[in-house]
């Protein structure tokens, strides 16, 4: 019930947003929100902390940028190519990472992501530190010009809804329930006969793919694949967004992405102090605010009911 109300709220806000906010900024937030939702599936529901999700977010952007710029792919095909790339990459990383548990899982994903970062820095087609520039927005279905910012916006919003829908369906499917069981007690889930590794791998692949979808879309929006998007700090940022919004809540990552995104935007004139402030928020969240915004609201709501 609450989910339905929140969803309608999100839909209305999303549809009207470009009329009272700068569309490119809202598109940026939407991409990060989708990225955070994908990340949340893994940490919030399967209990797996990936410290390397920037590899998917940033990697997809490069592939999408390259195929639309050099091979003349349409934006939709380009995004599909970028997303498909992360599907494969996510399968490989996931297969390797689930061989270790807990804290090691985080370190393995971080190290694997660093390979992608160095490739993005060194490969001939990526533009090194400058990133891949001049990606065309092109035309959707051959007749909708995406250089129009409203058309671009609703395209991005549609992609966001699709990605959000995939994550939502996964969370509330029997598959999602088994994931939660694994998070709560892995050995028990195993002894109940679930193939724990297969569930973890599939969750990792879904999460990586949706993160890639978000990154691919961002490349089209900004016409630019940035090296920073593949950097470990981006992996940290998405963790922060999820944590601030509410770990393991459906709408938390969206709220968190908007909060952190708006905050970084407002504070951008402070230079490096932004990092200090974000770090402080990180510490405060971990110490005293582990439920996050949506988590706290939910707790208050259920308490009232009792």
């Amino acid at each position, binding site marked *: 019930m609450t989910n339905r109300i929140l969803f309608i709220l999100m839909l209305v806000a999303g549809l009207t947003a470009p009329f009272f906010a700068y569309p490119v900024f809202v598109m940026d937030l939407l991409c990060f929100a989708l990225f955070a939702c994908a990340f949340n599936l893994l940490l919030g529901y399967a209990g797996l902390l990936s410290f390397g999700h920037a590899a998917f977010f940033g990697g997809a952007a490069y592939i999408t940028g390259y195929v639309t710029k050099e091979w003349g792919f349409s934006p939709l095909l380009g995004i599909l190519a970028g997303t498909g790339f992360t599907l494969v990459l996510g399968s490989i990383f996931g297969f390797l990472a689930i061989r270790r548990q*807990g804290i090691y899982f985080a*370190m393995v994903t971080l190290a*694997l992501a660093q390979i992608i970062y160095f490739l993005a820095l060194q490969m001939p087609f990526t533009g090194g530190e400058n990133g891949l520039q001049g990606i065309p927005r092109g035309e959707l279905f051959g007749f909708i010009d995406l250089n129009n910012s409203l058309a671009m916006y609703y395209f991005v919003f549609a992609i966001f809804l699709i990605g959000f829908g995939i994550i939502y369906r996964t969370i509330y499917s029997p598959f999602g329930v088994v994931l939660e069981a694994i998070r709560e007690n892995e050995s028990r889930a195993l002894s109940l006969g679930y193939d724990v590794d297969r569930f973890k791998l599939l969750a990792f692949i879904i999460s990586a793919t949706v993160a890639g979808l978000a990154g691919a879309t961002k490349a089209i929006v900004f016409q630019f694949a940035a090296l920073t998007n593949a950097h*470990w700090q981006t992996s940290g940022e998405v963790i922060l967004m999820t944590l601030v919004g509410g770990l393991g809540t459906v709408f938390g990552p969206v709220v968190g992405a908007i909060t952190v995104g708006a905050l970084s935007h407002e504070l951008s004139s402070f230079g*490096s102090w932004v990092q200090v402030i974000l*770090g402080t928020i990180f510490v405060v969240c971990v110490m005293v605010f582990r439920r996050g915004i949506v988590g706290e609201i939910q707790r208050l709501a259920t308490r009232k009911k009792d």
Partner: protein
Amino acid sequence: MSIQVILAQALLGLNVGVFYAMLSLGLAVIFGLLNIINFAHGAMYMLGAFLALIGYSFLEQWFGVSVQIGFWASLVLVPLLVGLLGVLIERFLLRRLYELDHIYGLLLTFGITLILQGLFSNYFNVSGTPYPGQPESLSGVMNLGFMYFPTYRLFAIVFSLVVCFATWFFIEHTKLGSRLRAGVENPDLTQAFGLNVPLMITLTFAFGAGLAGLAGVLAAPMYSVSPLMGADLIIVVFAVVVIGGMGSIMGAILSGLALGLIEGLTKVFYPPAASTVIFFLMVLVLLFRPAGLFGKEK
């Protein structure tokens, strides 16, 4: 390719390897007792380098005191300061998280990393500031018979090796060390025998932090001091730790040294892969020996 070039790169690789060894040793010691991975380990290494730099070059300019803290004094003072920061972090923050999932410890130390890194980025250039305080006695080059090698780098190698093996000896072969190992094995029982386990935990964390600070001081004269120097290094050290497994102190030291050496040699034979070779080795280890070379399967 001449043998000299290979030997020179091998020695330079060993030079990097001792830093991997010292940092992964600190991580392993902390992990053993606290079961958390200290993401801020890299930031503490950076902090060590900056404290040495500030003590040497900026005290008068910033604080108006006309004192200059030289390299040797830094080598003693800075690890103590960084260790003190470790005590504060453990006492006031980490301690409250032990009951929770260990990932919260990682996330907390990640936040601390951002704070430290951001602070120094405000005052220092990301591309690095040189540390001018290298002592006179260690400047110049040394004739090793087959090649000339910078005296300071040689000193750094020998000094780090001594520190690493002293730590190993302390933990594996002294009475205090055996108590520490008992605390790792079974904290509750150790506490029941009358040992102050919480104090041991605090001091262990401080020791690991101090070790990172010490590595930072050692690195300062060799690499330019930059706010990002720790972050780039620590991720490689994570891979080193995954490869070695954190089960044993000696394992952490040896894998650090070996991987530095391999990285150095990669620079000779295929330079573009030098920055990623350790990560690819990690992939191989995960495929064929998931628990790590020295790790125990749990």
